[in-house]
């Protein structure tokens, strides 16, 4: 009988789990697709252009990297994912050379220069974002109103977060009411949905949902592309955690710590006092959700092990809070993750020492 076996020199095991690093990256990219579609819908061609340029730049940069490393790495999906993640942190209408250069920097310098996928000590996408913020701080914060709210393209406005920080209203009104009081734009969809919710549910409970939260959730507010579809981010997170493609402990502990700190200390917005911070507003703005599920939980630049993941996530949550509360920019979450990326070896070493010390006590 003639042997037709092709795979001879491999070692055990001979069967594997369906998850591969390439598949994980591609699925992760796919979960971003709803965000791409929705943001393109509400912002129009300006959003399409940013996504398109970032994607093209990632493909070109990865092709160059493949050439330099002499191995074909486009198939591992990490380049496309990096491109999409960088684009997600940019406002629509940004000059297109910014996503192009940032993505190229992310892939060629942050990833490839350190040895390619798996060897980078910093999340390439975040490296690219930090690069963009450092180079073009003004352009990166030139936000526009979605076409769906203003009716026309390119009406610039500041994000609810920045706008609310600038308000000096009395401490007695909640942040959303303060925004309304200052004539911050509100979409028709929001007033309709909020009215419906208040009539149907909250009025019976004696509560009232202020206008504006629906705008935050469905992205009808000025902001980055990734912020535009909070629901899609949450759906994506369910997919990623359900398929066990990301470490769930990191976003969980990060959001938990962030929410608790916001609740206790507030983020310096009108209507917030000790123990009455507006968690809903804080979580639905500034891209914290996006960062939690798509950036902090990036496997390569996050620590291994349960305890490490919890410590890492909690630290990101705390730093994000500090940057949000006292920092000058609300996008501080990007930097919070970056700082902790750098701290990963330290975290891993310290927890190792703690567990070893505990192990010794148990033995003794």
């Amino acid at each position, binding site marked *: *009988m*003639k*042997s*037709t*076996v*092709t*795979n*001879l*020199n*491999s*070692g*055990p*095991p*001979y*069967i*594997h*789990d*369906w*998850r*591969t*690093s*390439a*598949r*994980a990256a591609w699925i992760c990219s796919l979960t971003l697709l709803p965000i791409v579609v929705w943001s393109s819908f509400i912002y129009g061609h300006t959003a399409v252009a940013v996504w398109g340029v970032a994607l093209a730049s990632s493909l070109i940069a990865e092709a160059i990297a493949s050439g330099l490393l002499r191995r074909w790495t486009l198939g*591992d999906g990490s380049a496309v994912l990096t491109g999409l993640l960088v684009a997600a942190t940019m406002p629509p209408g940004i000059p297109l050379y910014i996503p192009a250069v940032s993505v190229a920097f992310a892939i060629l310098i942050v990833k490839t220069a350190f*040895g*390619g*996928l*798996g*060897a980078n000590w910093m999340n390439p996408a975040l490296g690219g974002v930090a690069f963009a913020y450092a180079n073009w701080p003004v352009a990166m914060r030139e936000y526009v109103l979605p076409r769906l709210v203003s009716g026309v393209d390119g009406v610039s406005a500041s994000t609810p977060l920045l706008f609310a920080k600038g308000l000096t209203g009395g401490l007695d009104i909640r942040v959303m009411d303060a925004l309304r009081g200052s004539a911050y734009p509100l979409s028709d969809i929001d007033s309709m949905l909020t009215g419906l919710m208040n009539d149907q549910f909250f009025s019976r409970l004696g509560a009232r949902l202020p206008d504006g939260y629906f705008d935050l959730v469905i992205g009808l507010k000025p902001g980055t592309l990734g912020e535009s579809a909070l629901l899609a981010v949450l759906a994506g997170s369910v997919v990623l955690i359900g398929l*066990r493609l990301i*470490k769930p402990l990191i976003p969980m502990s990060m959001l938990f710590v962030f929410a608790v700190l916001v609740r206790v200390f507030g983020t310096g917005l009108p209507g917030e006092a000790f123990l009455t911070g507006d968690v809903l507003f804080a979580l639905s703005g500034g891209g914290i959700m996006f960062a939690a599920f798509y950036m902090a939980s990036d*496997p*390569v*630049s*996050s620590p*291994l*092990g349960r305890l490490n*993941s919890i410590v890492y996530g909690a630290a990101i949550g705390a730093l994000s809070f500090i940057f949000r509360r006292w920092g000058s920019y609300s996008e501080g979450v990007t930097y919070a993750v970056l700082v902790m990326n750098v701290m990963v070896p330290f975290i891993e070493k310290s927890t190792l020492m703690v567990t070893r010390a505990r192990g010794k006590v148990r033995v003794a």
Partner: protein
Amino acid sequence: MDRVGCMIRARGFKRGGVPVPHRVPFKSGPIENAFLPKNAVVMLKDTRDAVEPLPVVYVGQEVRESQLIAKSAGRGSSNVHSPIPGIVRRIESTRTPGGFESRAILISLEGSFSVLGKRPERYLWKSLNKADIAHIVQEKGIVRISTGEPLAEILAERVARPGFILVISALEMDPYRRTEEELLAIRPEDIIDGCAIAARMTLPSRILLAVDEQISAATVDRLQTVIAASELEIAIQPFKRRFPQDLIRQMAEALDIADPGTLFLLEPGTLIALHEAVVANKPHIEQYVYVGGGAIKHPAILKARIGAPIGDLIEECGGFSGHPDTIVIGGPLRGRAAADLDVSVTRTTRAVLALTAEETKSAPERGCVRCGDCLAVCPEGLDPHAIFKLLRAGRRAEAVVAGLDRCSLCGSCAYVCRSRIPLVQKFDVAKRNEELL
């Protein structure tokens, strides 16, 4: 399939492991004898650690079936008998799938049969004394099919260290093999009888029958009847279906036993060999082999002669139905790839799997993405990622500190590795302290 867990709680080891949710369907039925091979290549070493026995036949000699062809060379080696009647054609060194060299005796079929077709003899072993039984076990070259160790030796070791628990391990912790479960259903009398022989010799403090949590109620009923008739006290203990539950340390963990050394694992296949040696005077020349995998037309369990080429067995199962990506001897997680279809059955060949590419799910090796899955599944609680990194940096001593010597090479980490890093291969080589490939 009823859950025996309703009666007794199924036990499982505490950390890590890979669940085996989907088993390849298997049609149970009587086990057929495989055709006698035209040429049998009898490997003198079953495992890497075994000591090679000394051939006692010469090229051109005519041998009968069951005739001694190689004699134990002392500790770690066992007698080898001719699986078929015929003429010794060659005695030469070959490379086994396990990657070690072994001498092999090639016998070509000729002459008449003495074992096959004859009614087996029936000795009433209860009249034999321990020394007689020990002699038979040694003489007939019985080995423990899971490890390849000579059964006579490990029985003697247990006699020297009393106070252990004898575990009949009928656990199948991969999606394919079903041999031990089938044997338990088909030949419970012989298995329990083999167990009685082993118990008589070693006097265990307790006997456990480890079964899968989803064993059929009918099998359990039948086993209980047989056990009751045997006058042995055997407790049936279900285990959760989670790889690698069948390893001794995971078994001990599941049973809340601190020292795995107090467990003595024997599989039904070994007990049947023991039973047949003592009762029917039959040497270890047959082996139950599960032949399956996605590329096999009709997966089946065959009673094959030692030395038969795996190609014959595959052909007997209808041949290939798809394109096999890998042919594996032993389990899919801990087995070894066969270089060709001429690899022969040994006393430790429990399964021959022809796996398709969809089953192997092999992918190009990439850099570690630090997903942490290997930490999560390691049943020993080790950090395979860190050990691998240390080994790659040539820091073997530090890898040992990190737990390399506790690694049982079960393969869980490499099974889940997203970047398809050959972790187990690296650990295997490093454990044997050889130069890296």
